[in-house]
């Protein structure tokens, strides 16, 4: 019997760690006794191109990808890529987006240039369920700009409450190289706290 608990679309620029984020979620699913399936586009697109990872967690999951309108969460590691994939969210879906602006060459070279504010406005006009995370700042504070993906893992877990902290810590240890574990765990908690404070302001 197929039971998909959650569908997550991760949108990133190749090299930002979108694939590692997908892998960490899959590890966390298995650590907590669930099943996971992801679909990746590896290879050419990995290098600074648009990268999308489909992640599904459940008790039994079959397909490596899902359709526009089916995602519970959109995790955007970059604003333009988040906007490119916003239609993957279902109506009640939540967008968690890093405040990271890396326009592709065509946007950067044209005049007038698109701006960060325009992309943010387009995202806001698409959905009210949008959380923008100062992920680069939090990652640098945690020890490495490369840990931006783990900040967003924290935001995702604050919004979804999918995994216990101990499960995520174990998943990070399994999915990341040993030298990156400490900063990654710090970044995770920092993203979690930031998102939690905005999601539940009463606490």
């Amino acid at each position, binding site marked *: 019997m*197929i039971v998909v608990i959650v569908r997550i679309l991760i949108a990133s620029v190749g090299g930002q760690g979108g694939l590692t984020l997908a892998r960490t979620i899959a590890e966390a699913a298995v650590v907590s006794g669930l*099943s996971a399936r*992801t679909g990746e586009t590896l290879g050419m697109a990995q290098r600074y191109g648009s990268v999308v990872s489909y992640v599904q967690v459940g008790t039994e999951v079959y397909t490596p990808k899902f359709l526009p309108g089916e995602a519970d969460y959109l995790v955007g590691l970059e604003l333009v890529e988040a906007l490119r994939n916003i239609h993957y969210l279902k109506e009640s879906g939540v967008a968690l987006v890093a405040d990271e602006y*890396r326009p592709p060459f065509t946007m950067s070279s044209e005049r007038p240039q698109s701006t960060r504010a325009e992309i943010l406005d387009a995202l806001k006009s698409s959905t009210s369920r949008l959380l923008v995370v100062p992920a680069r700042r939090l990652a640098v504070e945690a020890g490495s700009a490369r840990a931006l993906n783990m900040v967003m893992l924290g935001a995702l877990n604050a919004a979804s409450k999918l995994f216990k902290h101990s499960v995520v810590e174990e998943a990070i240890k*399994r999915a990341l190289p040993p030298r990156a574990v400490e900063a990654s765990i710090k970044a995770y908690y920092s993203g979690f706290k930031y998102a939690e404070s905005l999601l539940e302001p009463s606490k």
Partner: protein
Amino acid sequence: MSLLGPPGTKLPLLGNEAIARGVLEAGIYVVTGYPGTPSSEVIMTLQEYARELDMYVEWAVNERVALEVAIGAAISGARAMATMKAPGLNVASDPLLSAAYSGVDGGLVVYVADDPGPHTTQTEQDSRWYAKLAKLPMISPSTPQEAKDYVKVAVELSEALQLPVILRTTTRVSHAVGDVVFGGIQRPKKGGVFKKAPERFVRAGMDWNLARHKWLNAQLARVEEVAERYGLNRVYGEGELCIVSEGAAFNYIYEAVVERGLGAKLVKLGLLYPLPRRFLLENLKGCKRVLVFEELDPYIEEGLKTILYDAGLHVEVLGKSTGHVPLEGELDKGVALRALGLEPPPQSLKAHSVPRRPPPLCPGCPHRFTFLALKRAISRRGYKLSEVPVIGDIGCYALGVYQPIDMLWTEHSMGASISMAMGLKLAGFDKPVVAVIGDSTFYHAGLQSLIEAVNKRVDVLVVIMDNEVVAMTGHQSTPAWRTSETGRELKPVSLDELVKAIGPSELRVVDSYNLDELERAFTELLDKPGVKVVVSRHPCALLEARLKGVKVRFKVEEEKCTGCRACLLATGCPAIYMEGGKAHIILEDCNGCGLCARFCPQKAIVVAG
């Protein structure tokens, strides 16, 4: 992640990593192949364990050589595997067809990964036809778990039938992560016994060939029966509607049927060649209509129609020929729902049209220097860029097709740059022609093209863009390396000496980062007669950064930047972007080549910190 866990271990694995574990469970000793997305991770994963487990796991110079090495091992009783992407099987098809006649003793698995979409391949090749063409059994998994399990099945089938077995996946199986439960590991099975039997192994004897063809057909007639105990073909559910599917496509149609609660009988095939005739007839005999849901060509659809016709069954077959399933592109659950006459889930958020982000050359990429030098040399010789074709090849430098580099005119097949450039010239093209090819592609298939061009005395400028690694597929070794990924000591085969031995009229070797010298070489050689070779050599910037770290990085001094975009328009470097009328450099992405600084009229780009 360790691949060596005990039986029962459950880990999320990429399909290709699962296949790597399957190799250990199947006791395969020789694993070789040529890198190609989406197949490369099998060897990359296994190389970590090769020494510890006493296995041979090495990249070969090309797929044909890889398969021949694997065949040689298997006819002496070793268990062997050759891995490749779909076009690689075209390269390896010559030995593949002969191996079907000779047969093997140790299990031989040919792993090929197709790419519906396509995501990273030049064609949407359907390699299932190769099984039919070569007359070799083919099996196809749907999930990472099956991908692992089927390696052992392939080895056992191969040994039971004495035939190479093709294990075929697609991108959504080889590059899907799913949880996989381990079985037990077997000790790698070496060979070393080879008895002379020319009637079996010499394809020069025509009577022998005829006899082996009869033998091959007799073996093929046994495949369904021999494979039966592995349960490769399965039936799910009951209902009026009958569906036949396989591979990644099965996942989509299965989820569609279950999610919508349809009463349908789903027939999943794991054995693709020969199609399991008895199984299909037994399970489809009560059906009035059968939907065949498969990716790429109507392979099962056509085979099934023949089987039904021969059995005198009048069953309506729906699929690609009836327009229910598209002939191009990858399938998904939405296509599955529509094939079933249902609507996909509603899409409540509007899609935004956002400019594409094609993969550019990386920050610091030496190929960027080579292309810019070539551009300037062409202009300096008085030609327009639109007059001088740059005939490309397969590798990272093919990304030079995109703006603002915009230099590549063709990219076809491994090694084709030099030979296609030669064809242009001998057909009467009167402007200079340039061929660009990477080091690994040159070793793979460019060598023969260069021999042809030199031998026939054509006029062409050949640029070998040598970054000392197979970069695009994830940094694999080339024949120029001294030590392989597994720590094996190698005898490096010098690219320069190879080229010299072929005898081009000119040979220059230049450091790619030396833009002025490169430009000088290209300017001098562009329209000289004969085959002129320039080796533009500099290590891949991405690999260098990973291995040695980045010593200097650059930043923009904002007060000096006028926002003219010269840095971006010249280089297209993905570490640079414009915001608020100023250029910005993403510091951690900068690999410190400094090319952008050369183009800044304000000298606003300086070494950071």
